[in-house]
Structures are given as structure tokens and as C-alpha cells.
């Protein structure tokens, strides 16, 4: 087994091995592994000390910011307050100054009293309680050995934990499912207690000992849980439910949130009362010794356990699930279910865990059921609405700027601090806020902020030009909004670039200095800090190009929309091909011409695409070579090499626009997850590609197919593949639905574009991107 060792972050510490209840569904006592019978009842002093030592060692080795220790049992409260205090003290002092200690305890609640809760308050041990629902449900299994109900005592414990003085320790309720119980009554009984979190556990079962299915339905557990889900939704989701949150998270492309679902590597280990180290102990319901590793805290490090093949098997993500699961469309959410539930003694390969879950049909139905019920509410509006997409990007850019400022923590220097303060002044004015939005929406703002944050995260500090860019951004906004607000700036290499406006030439190459930009008469005045008062360069609002001012040109040639031809921004060199220097005026005119010609073709052939492009494209940057393509920047820009004729730029623009749109979507929502885990065969190239590439090629071809239907060959098949792939999220599916709608009328419109002949292959084919040629087959 390969791959780096995954450090443990969660440690289940068995402090007592017996229980005061005799629940007939408990895996510890009622299942195959009876090793508890030979273990000491209570954890020993020696085991506590060694556990603390090993924890500190593990946290140090892996520089873990925090570790979670869950005190468990049996029933951990049976260890008594003195023993529990010792555990808390030893763990706390061992980890002091090394890692944060997140201590938790999980109890049946029977013994929970202020005596314990005061102790837990002192050490901030948070408490979870097992409760199976209403009284009838709870009494079905949670009884004392003599048959008495534990329900009144558990309710008392829950009430105590809900008191003001202990509420901050409340973790919530854990409910084991029994489909004989009324799901609505169970939900309501739990919700009534206002727990901060609830989770539902499927009863322990394996293929050898399948769960009871009284009515024979293969999806009885899914039906039960979905009834709870519906009730929960109807009641306005009164509390988070870990199982539901996990499915919702993974459906949207996020991680799973519990070991019983999804492909996240398991990073937990169990320490028994005698100091032996085991894998998660639900394995005990599989077979005797299933959880054993042969290691203990006295002679082994946690790293040794982490390298154990049984532990590693559960950290392999997709490689760690059965062949059937690997090909299952819901595997990202399901992950083959809880490891234990996969066990069968008579499997094809001689028994083991290489099987789908014994709850397979239930899990698939549960995940699909939750998806169907929530799809409309969880979809990002950005996928269908170009305006929402831009709004999401504006929010992202502002968040990035705020995060850079926060990360700097006052170490950004005087220029940064002044500019940040002035940004607030600009924002306080309505026109100023709009102007700042416009400058922040300039695509290269994103390039600046992403690079700055990457540098800060890598510990490289803020580069000087990055600090200067904030000042220039605020100055540009002040000028656009005509605010009477002087903004200190810095120039370098002889030029001060105000994004979206232009470059003021203040000196020769290599010269740098400080200056102040003062908006005036619709234009602005730039005065170097050293210069005498009354001097400075005045730039009028329609100042023509001259030795001291290079404006960012705006292309305005109908039917193309107004577009910045940005050949000045120092950050524009963020495309695959190098950006060229400032264009001569006649070259800029030629650009305007070509774009207008291409736009006329697009507006005629693909009016919807052209209209959306007109609303979202703001900036064109001339490159030395290549067709229109997006680079590393915010939405709204395309870079392009010199092109001739109108046909090629029309298709090139359309292709560039499609790729820019897909990229922009992927930056504000998750269209897929775990890209690269599976291989897909493209219907056109017969090539094995990753999901992201299949999606990119399909999206681009569908867009080009609107212009020329020959590009649609294979697209419907590809859309089907994408929809059934494990990687796709709800937003990915939403996008596919939108593409289907886009191309649905295309076949009938095919005749329209037949005149725009493109050679079906070879010389005339449009080279859309260097590494991903889209050509006709």
C-alpha cells in the first residue's frame, strides 16, 4: 500500500470496558468479538500516562494543530470522577503548548450528574448522549439487565446538560435506528430536546448477519431515514443531523462528515483499557479480533499503528472500496458505507471487507432520495444566471482582499494601511462604492489578490508591487467616482498604472517613487511627493495619449460591446501565451475592427451566447500568439494573439468565452469533486481523460455546436456520461441540464449555419487551445 501516512486526529479512549445497561443492539457486548471479557474494567494509570505521552509525540511529529480525544466505553462514566479527572489532567498537561486538546465523552446518560458535569466543565469535556428517540423507541433496546427502562434517567441527564451552566458542553444526541420505531415520533422526541446535533446510526450488521427487514423491503432503512428527513425538513431543520449534513456536503462536492459515509480517509484509532491499540471498534461486530493491530501504547508509537495494513486499507479512498462501489455513481457520498457493514466470511476472495455494504440498496436510495428532495434548494444560482455568477465573483474578490488584509495583520506597510483606510472612505460614498466595485471587478484584480495570498500563505510576505496595487486600485476608484480624496500611491519603472484607466508616465525606465493622486475636474492630478506644491501632471477625463499618459483604450465598434483593450496592466501577463507590449494606435483600430466583424457573425448565429458575452466580457488583452483564451484572472477577460479574417475570431471568441465561463463557474461553485480519480473515454477522441477535461471539452463543443452543429458529434453521449459519473455534483448536473437545453433546438437550426463553411478537418480546423485541440473527427 502506497501513499503518505495519514496521521490520526481522533483518538477513542476506552476508560471503562463494562456498561450499566444491557442494550441488545450494542456492538461491544452482543457481537462476534468478545475480547472485552478479558480486558481490565478500568483504564490503568500506566495506560493513561503512556497514552498522553504517545499523543504528544504524535501531535509533535505531525505538527497537528489539534487532536480530538473521545472518552468512550463500555460506559465511560463507570470509571468514576477520580479516574476521569486523572485522564483529563494527564492529557491536558501532555499536550499543553503542543496542540489544542478537544476532549469529548460519549455516555448512555444513566449516571450523568452535576458531579461529573462540574468536572467536565473544568476540563471542557463536551458530552454526547445516546438516545433512541421517544420512550417506546428507547425502551426497545436501552434497558438495564433486569429489563427496567433507562429512558427516565437518560431524559434527566439530557435536561441537566441543557441547563444554562452546562449547555456549552452539550454535543447532542446519538440515535440508533430501529425500523420498528415510528420515525416521526423518534424525530420529534429528539427535536423536542433541542440538541445542538443529532446523528442516526444504522444497527450493526454484516453480510453474515444482515439487519432485520420485517417487511422484506431492501430499502426499509432508507425509507425510514427519508421519513425522518421529510419530517426534519417540514419542521424547518430544527437541528443539524450529521448523516444528512454529510450527504448534503458530498452531493455539493464537499467532504463527507462521518466515517460511516464517503471516501474521506479514516484518521481515528482506539485505545483499549489495557493500552492495546485497535482500529475502530465497530469492527468487533465482524469477527473475533477484527479490530486488533497487535500494538499497544507502551511499546508502539501511533505512527506504527497508522502504518498497519488494516488501518491503511481505510485511508485509500476509492482504492479502499469494493469493485462494485468503485463504479457506483453515489460512491462519493456513500463510500461503501461503514467498514464493518461490508464484512462477509464467505466472499469470493475468501471473506473480508472487499464488498459493498450490507446496507447498499438503502444507502443508494437514501442518497438519491436526499438529492431529489434538496436539489432545487442547494443549486447555486450562478450556474443559470450570469448576473448571479458575476455577483458571486465580486463577493469572492472582496473576500480575497479582506483575507489578504486580515492575513497581513498590520504588517502590510504604511502604503497598504493608508490605502485600506481610504478604501473605506471611498466605499462610504455611493458613487465611490460603485467605482470601487468596477475596479475590483477588473479581471486582473483577481490575479493580484490570488498571487498575494499565495505568497502570504507560503510565508514569503507581501511583495512591494502587491502592496502598491491596493493604492492604485483605490486611486482609480476615487478618480472614477470623482471623489475629492487625495490617495497616496507609488510608481515603479517610471509608470503609475491606475487599473482600468491607464498609465501615467512619471519617470524613465527603472525609476520609482511616491506620489499622490488627487481627482480633479473629472480627471486627476498626480504629484510626486518630493515635488514642489502646485506642480504635477494633470490628466483630463478625455486626455489623449501623449508622452505622459497612456490610456487603456476602449473598443467601441458596434455590434461588439464596449471592451477595454488592456495592453497596459502590469498584471495582464497571466495567459499561456505572453502578453504583448502597448499596441500602436492603428493596431488597436484593427483590433476593434476584427472584434466587431467577429461579433456580427456571433450575434447572428448564436444570439444568446453573444448577448451573454456582451454582458460579461469586459477586457481583451493582446497576446503574442494563440486564439482567444482565458488566463489566470477574474471573469471578464480574454487574451488573444493576432488573428485575421472574421470567421476564425468568431469561433475563437465563442470557444474562449465558453472556457472562460466554465472556469468562472468552477471558481465559485463545485461542479465536481475528486477529479482524476476515475477515467472517462471521450466519445470523439476515444481517449482516456479526467472528469474535468471531459466536462471542459463537452461544454466547449456544445457551445461551438450552437454555431456549427458538426461540433455536436458525441456531445449527447458525453452529457450522459457526465450525468452518471461519480464526480458530478448537484451544480455539475445543473450545468449539464442547462447545456442540454441550449443544444436541444440546434439540430433543427442546423441549416442556418451551413453556409459558414469550416473545413471539416485539417488545415482550416480551429485550434482552440494548445493542449486540447478540438477538431472535427
Amino acid at each position, binding site marked *: 500500500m502506497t501513499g503518505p501516512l495519514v496521521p490520526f*486526529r481522533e483518538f*477513542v479512549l476506552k476508560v471503562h470496558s463494562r456498561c450499566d445497561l444491557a442494550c441488545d443492539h450494542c*456492538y461491544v457486548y452482543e457481537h462476534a468479538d468478545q475480547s472485552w471479557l478479558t480486558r481490565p474494567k478500568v483504564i490503568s494509570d500506566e495506560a493513561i500516562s503512556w497514552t498522553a505521552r504517545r499523543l504528544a509525540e504524535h501531535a509533535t511529529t505531525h505538527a497537528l494543530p*489539534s487532536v*480530538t480525544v*473521545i472518552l*468512550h466505553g463500555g460506559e465511560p462514566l463507570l470509571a468514576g470522577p477520580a479516574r476521569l479527572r486523572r485522564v483529563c489532567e494527564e492529557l491536558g498537561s501532555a499536550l499543553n503548548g503542543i496542540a489544542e486538546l478537544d476532549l*469529548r465523552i*460519549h455516555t448512555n446518560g444513566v449516571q450523568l450528574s452535576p458531579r461529573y458535569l462540574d468536572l467536565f466543565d473544568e476540563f471542557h469535556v463536551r458530552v*454526547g448522549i445516546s438516545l433512541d428517540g421517544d420512550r417506546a423507541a428507547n425502551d426497545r433496546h436501552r434497558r438495564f439487565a433486569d429489563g427496567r427502562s433507562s429512558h427516565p434517567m437518560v431524559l434527566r441527564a439530557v435536561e441537566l446538560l441543557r441547563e444554562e451552566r452546562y449547555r456549552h458542553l452539550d454535543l*447532542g444526541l*446519538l440515535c440508533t435506528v430501529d425500523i420498528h420505531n415510528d420515525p416521526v415520533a423518534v424525530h420529534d422526541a429528539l427535536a423536542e430536546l433541542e440538541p445542538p*446535533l443529532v*446523528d442516526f*446510526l444504522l444497527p450493526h450488521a454484516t453480510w453474515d448477519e444482515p439487519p432485520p427487514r420485517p417487511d422484506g423491503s431492501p430499502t426499509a432503512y432508507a425509507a425510514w431515514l427519508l421519513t425522518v428527513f421529510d419530517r426534519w425538513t417540514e419542521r424547518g431543520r430544527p437541528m443539524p443531523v450529521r448523516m444528512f449534513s454529510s450527504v448534503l456536503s458530498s452531493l455539493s462536492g464537499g467532504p463527507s*462528515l*462521518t*466515517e460511516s459515509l464517503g471516501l474521506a480517509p*479514516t*484518521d481515528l484509532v482506539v485505545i483499549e483499557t489495557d493500552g492495546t491499540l485497535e482500529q475502530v471498534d*465497530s469492527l468487533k461486530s465482524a469477527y473475533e479480533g477484527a479490530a486488533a493491530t497487535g500494538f499497544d501504547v507502551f511499546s508502539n508509537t501511533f505512527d506504527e499503528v497508522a502504518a498497519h495494513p488494516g488501518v491503511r486499507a481505510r485511508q485509500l479512498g476509492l482504492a479502499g472500496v469494493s469493485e462494485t462501489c468503485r463504479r457506483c455513481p453515489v460512491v462519493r457520498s456513500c463510500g461503501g458505507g*461503514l467498514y464493518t457493514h461490508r464484512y462477509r466470511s464467505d466472499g469470493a476472495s475468501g471473506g473480508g471487507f472487499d464488498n459493498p455494504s450490507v446496507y447498499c440498496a438503502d444507502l443508494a436510495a437514501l442518497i438519491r432520495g436526499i438529492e431529489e428532495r434538496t436539489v432545487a434548494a442547494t443549486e447555486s444560482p450562478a450556474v443559470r*444566471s450570469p*448576473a448571479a455568477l*458575476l*455577483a458571486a465573483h465580486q*463577493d*469572492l474578490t*472582496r*473576500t*480575497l482582499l*479582506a*483575507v489578504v488584509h486580515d*492575513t497581513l495583520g498590520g504588517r502590510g506597510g504604511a502604503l497598504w494601511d493608508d490605502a*485600506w483606510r481610504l478604501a*473605506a472612505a471611498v*466605499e462610504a460614498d455611493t458613487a465611490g462604492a*460603485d467605482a470601487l466595485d*468596477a475596479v475590483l*471587478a477588473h479581471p486582473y484584480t*483577481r490575479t493580484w489578490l*490570488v498571487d498575494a*495570498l*499565495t505568497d502570504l*500563505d507560503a510565508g514569503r510576505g507581501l511583495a512591494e508591487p502587491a502592496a502598491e496595487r491596493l493604492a492604485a486600485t483605490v486611486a482609480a476608484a476615487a478618480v*472614477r467616482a470623482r471623489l475629492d480624496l487625495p490617495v497616496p500611491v507609488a510608481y515603479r519603472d517610471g509608470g503609475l498604472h491606475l487599473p*482600468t*484607466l*491607464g498609465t501615467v508616465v512619471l519617470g524613465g525606465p527603472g525609476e520609482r517613487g511616491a506620489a499622490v493622486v488627487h481627482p480633479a475636474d473629472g480627471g486627476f492630478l498626480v504629484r510626486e511627493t518630493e515635488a514642489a506644491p502646485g506642480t504635477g501632471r494633470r490628466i483630463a*477625463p478625455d*486626455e489623449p495619449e501623449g508622452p505622459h499618459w497612456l*490610456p*487603456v483604450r*476602449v473598443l467601441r465598434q458596434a455590434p461588439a*460591446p*464596449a471592451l477595454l483593450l488592456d495592453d497596459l496592466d502590469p498584471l495582464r501577463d497571466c495567459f499561456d501565451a505572453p502578453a504583448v507590449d502597448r499596441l500602436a494606435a492603428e493596431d488597436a483600430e484593427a483590433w476593434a475592427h476584427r472584434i466587431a466583424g467577429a461579433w456580427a457573425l456571433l450575434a447572428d448565429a448564436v444570439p444568446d451566447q453573444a448577448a451573454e458575452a456582451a454582458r*460579461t466580457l469586459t477586457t481583451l488583452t493582446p497576446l503574442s500568439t494563440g486564439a482567444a483564451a482565458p488566463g489566470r484572472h477574474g471573469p471578464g477577460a480574454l487574451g488573444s494573439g493576432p488573428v485575421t479574417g472574421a470567421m476564425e475570431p468568431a469561433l475563437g471568441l465563442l470557444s474562449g468565452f465558453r472556457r472562460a465561463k466554465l472556469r468562472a463557474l*468552477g*471558481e*465559485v461553485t463545485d461542479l465536481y469533486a475528486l477529479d482524476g480519480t476515475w477515467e472517462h473515454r471521450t466519445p470523439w477522441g476515444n481517449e482516456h481523460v479526467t472528469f474535468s477535461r471531459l466536462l471542459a471539452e463537452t461544454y466547449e463543443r456544445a457551445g461551438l455546436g450552437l454555431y456549427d452543429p458538426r461540433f455536436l458529434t458525441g456531445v449527447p453521449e458525453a452529457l450522459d456520461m457526465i450525468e452518471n459519473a461519480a464526480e458530478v455534483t448537484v451544480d455539475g448536473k445543473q450545468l449539464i441540464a442547462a447545456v442540454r437545453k441550449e443544444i436541444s433546438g440546434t439540430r433543427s437550426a442546423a441549416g442556418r449555419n451551413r453556409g459558414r463553411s469550416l473545413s471539416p478537418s485539417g488545415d482550416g480546423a480551429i485550434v482552440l487551445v494548445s493542449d486540447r485541440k478540438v477538431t472535427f473527427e
Partner: protein
Amino acid sequence: MKTYGTTPDFAPAKTRATLAATDVRSADAVTKINRVCGATTARSTRISTFNSAL
């Protein structure tokens, strides 16, 4: 040639927070940033995944 004049078309952001009041620490903010910036120092708190406890 007019020097400036293009403003992108935004959905009206009605109750937008100021830059200073922008959420930079929540899990939501971290998710947003992580989509465009590989790994950041910001970390959201982990929840326990052990099935038999909360």
C-alpha cells in the same frame, strides 16, 4: 477616445458588507478562498467523524 466607461453588469448586492466587515474566517469564506487559492492558512474546525460518538 474616452478613457473609461465600461462597468460590468452586477446583480444588485443589496446588503453588502463593507471590506472591513467582510467575513474572512467562517467555513464558508474558507471554502470560497480554497477554490481559487490552493491551500490557505485559514482552517475551519473539524467535526468528529467517529461513528459511535458525536
